[in-house]
């Protein structure tokens, strides 16, 4: 029996001047199904999810209907809506209402007026199931992002919903916390039979588990099938959504593979083994000389030591690096390893107690603050919102530079021209990132620091963003980026460094760096390392497959 039946649902936001955000969407969700909803930002995913829980639906014009267990969902009492339809949102912080972990777990039950005995049992159950008992008494302020999001999930599950709706739950998390979170969702679906409807950018982690994928574009459903078949549909339509597919899927179709499409790295490996039973003739792509490697260094860090307080452990324990001028230099590494701290040290927000930093050959302490942050150094913080202080994007940019022509140029470069009159908070994550970048670029930096620039943005925005970075590089700007996103670094960076234990341990070109790692590397490399050497992106693997096939023919 269908759990949700969505019938010809159309929706227009009250403020959208008649533009349809949902256009005659119809599909059913079966009981116990694990459904992935994918699509670009702005394709109507969140709008659709909010229609499934009317207390969250925004104002606007609606036609068609949504049935929940055969009853129109709008006729459900608020109590039933709260108890039966669980909804987890994107931002881990703002969803939390109370100050203690135990109180947050009990919040929903308190709202429903449960008695002590039931509450105790349910809270205890949930804490055990989610492994929260160790931090049960903690203040929520002291939790990591991953723990916060797990707490949000647990406090929804405490109400024992029949359906769990998740709106990009892992977009603010690092990859390890994200895959933990998604595993928990998977476990809930498998062990409790809870229906799951989820939107995600990180399809690699959920595509193999999902029963069904629904792809949306421009408010319409453009594909609805098992995940295994979705890749073919999108590839044949030449849909830009194809770039968001997991690496094995992209390699499979990109190289014109035949047979069953692999979804996981494991399947991808066996598919490659079968495709090249005698091993590949062409094992690696021709080595290209990295043009920036020998450039003069724009930034030199020499044995930096730093700790936040006198009696806390050192965060930076002898960080040394040289960043060649005009390169995109990526620093990867685990959570809380000290990567962001290092960026702040370069900016002078954190002062290392030992070591030297030279920017363009001059020690950083010799710069006056005004001199350093104008035409020299600028940083894009992790949360782009922390740069916004005005009412429109235009005012934001003009705060930095009153020269309208220059503002226009940068706006064009960052592709924010159509957004100039919007409020910065009304933009999507990727748009905010670009607006913030434009603002930073108006200080005309020669050395640009980026802190997790791809966090929470989808694969299309990442490509746009990479294009902007390439243009900046072409203008001779040096970019230092801190990131968890190994796929992005492998594809676009010139140099990659591994940050671990307060130090930069290894530095190399992405191909050599990821090619020699076996765990901390891209999906494409893990999938192809037994056949090819140093193939680190899906494009590399596709090129090698093609080269081998041509060799045979």
């Amino acid at each position, binding site marked *: 029996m269908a759990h949700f039946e969505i019938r010809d649902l159309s929706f227009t936001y009250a403020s959208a001047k008649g533009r349809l955000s949902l256009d005659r969407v119809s599909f059913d969700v079966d009981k116990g199904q694990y459904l992935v909803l994918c699509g670009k930002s702005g394709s109507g995913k969140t709008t659709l999810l909010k229609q499934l829980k009317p207390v969250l639906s925004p104002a606007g014009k609606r036609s068609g209907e949504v049935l929940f267990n055969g009853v129109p969902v709008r006729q459900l009492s608020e109590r039933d809506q709260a108890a039966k339809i669980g909804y987890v949102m994107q931002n881990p912080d703002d969803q939390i*209402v109370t100050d203690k972990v135990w109180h947050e777990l009990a919040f929903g039950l308190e709202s429903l007026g449960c008695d002590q005995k039931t509450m105790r049992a349910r809270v205890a159950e949930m804490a055990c199931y989610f492994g929260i008992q160790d931090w049960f008494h903690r203040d929520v302020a002291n939790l990591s992002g991953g723990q916060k999001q797990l707490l949000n999930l647990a406090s929804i599950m405490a109400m024992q919903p029949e359906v769990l709706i998740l709106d990009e739950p892992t977009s603010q998390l690092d990859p390890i916390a994200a895959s933990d979170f998604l595993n928990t969702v998977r476990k809930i679906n498998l062990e409790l039979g809870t229906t799951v409807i989820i939107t995600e950018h990180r399809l690699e982690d959920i595509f193999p588990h999902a029963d069904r994928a629904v792809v949306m574009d421009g408010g319409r459903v453009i594909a609805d099938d098992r995940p295994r078949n979705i890749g073919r549909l999108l590839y044949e339509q030449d849909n830009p959504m194809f770039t968001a597919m997991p690496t094995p899927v992209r390699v499979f179709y990109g190289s014109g593979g035949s047979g069953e499409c692999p979804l996981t790295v494991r399947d991808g490996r066996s598919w490659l083994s079968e495709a090249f039973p005698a091993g590949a003739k062409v094992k690696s792509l021709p080595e290209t000389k990295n043009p920036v490697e020998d450039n003069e260094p724009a930034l030199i860090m020499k044995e930096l030591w730093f700790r936040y307080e006198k009696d806390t452990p050192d965060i930076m324990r002898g960080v040394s690096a040289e960043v060649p001028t005009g390169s995109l230099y990526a620093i990867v590494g685990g959570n809380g390893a000290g990567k962001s701290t290092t960026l*702040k040290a370069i*900016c002078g927000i954190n002062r290392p107690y030992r070591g030297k930093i030279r920017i363009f050959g001059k020690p950083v302490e010799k710069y006056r603050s005004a001199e350093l942050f104008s035409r020299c150094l600028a940083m894009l*913080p992790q949360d782009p919102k922390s740069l916004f202080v005005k009412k429109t994007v235009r005012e934001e940019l003009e705060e930095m530079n009153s020269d309208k022509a220059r503002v226009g140029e940068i706006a064009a470069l960052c592709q924010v021209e159509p957004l100039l009159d919007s409020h910065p908070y009304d933009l999507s994550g990727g748009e905010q990132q670009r607006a913030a970048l434009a603002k930073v670029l108006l200080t005309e930096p020669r050395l640009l620091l980026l802190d997790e620039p791809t966090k929470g943005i989808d694969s299309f925005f990442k490509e746009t963003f990479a294009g902007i970075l390439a243009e900046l590089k072409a203008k001779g700007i040096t970019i230092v980026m801190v990131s968890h996103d190994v796929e992005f670094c492998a594809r676009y960076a010139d140099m990659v460094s591994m940050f671990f234990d307060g130090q930069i341990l290894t530095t190399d070109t992405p191909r050599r760096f990821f090619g020699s790692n076996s765990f901390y590397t891209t999906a494409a490399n893990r999938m192809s390392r037994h056949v090819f050497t140093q193939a680190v992106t899906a494009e590399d693997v596709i090129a090698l497959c093609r080269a081998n096939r041509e060799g045979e023919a």
Partner: protein
Amino acid sequence: MKREENDAFSRCHPAVGFTFFVGAIGLGAMIMHPAYIAASAVFAVTYYCLLKGARGMKLVALSIPLFLFLTFANPLVNHDGQRVLTYVFGKPYTFEALLYGMVIAGMLIAMILWAGCYNAVMTSDKFMTLFGGMIPTISMLLLMVLRLVPNMLRKIGQLAGARRCIGRGAAENATKKEQAADSLNVLSALMTWALEGGVITADSMKARGYGTERRSSFQIHTLTGQDICLLGTMGVLTVMIVRLIALGGTAANYTPIMEITPVTGRYVWGFAAYCAFLSLPTVLYIKEAVQWHISRSGI
């Protein structure tokens, strides 16, 4: 583990802690008798030091000069009394006024230390469990407001840091006017940010059924047999002390004529009750320490 969490009294039900502090501070403020004040100060110092360890000594040490200052300053403004010790600026400096100053100073210090103990023992969440059940909606509101402040402070730091890294925000050599303009910018950004977050929090509350039913309140602390026993003991002792006050057993007058009811004799039971009441947290602490010591040496 913080020291406070290691204290047996702190781990009791919040009702026990709350009753005790209401008693200790309330009764302490009513009694002006030097012996009772001395008792109160002694127990406050002991318990405060047990709670805070070496850090606690600091406040205790600081309170000594305050005590001396208040004691010796009182006769300078208060000239009543019969036994004149000396003349200062031509005014009498009397023994009664000196004693009165000592009593006032002792009481003040005892109150400060009890308040310090209260802060350490009765954390905000304990207060909430106690009163959240009575008025869940208001206590919920209070809790959210209290959360807002540290969140805001964190965000201010983030905003200011981000602005510095693009060469905006208050530079070292900025004028007052520039600094003010920048603070205004940060403030308005903070407001937008908070409102934005507030909308999401409101959604998250609605999504979890906020306002659909009469709220109940999850009690993390359970009332144990020991808690009931302690509450009963405190009840009995409080009745005794109130009776004592009513009978005039704690009456003390300093100026112009000094009359202090003796502690020994008729009212000795009252003094014993008062000491017993105030010593409860310390006794619990020591009892537990001894128990651990014995069980450890038994292994």
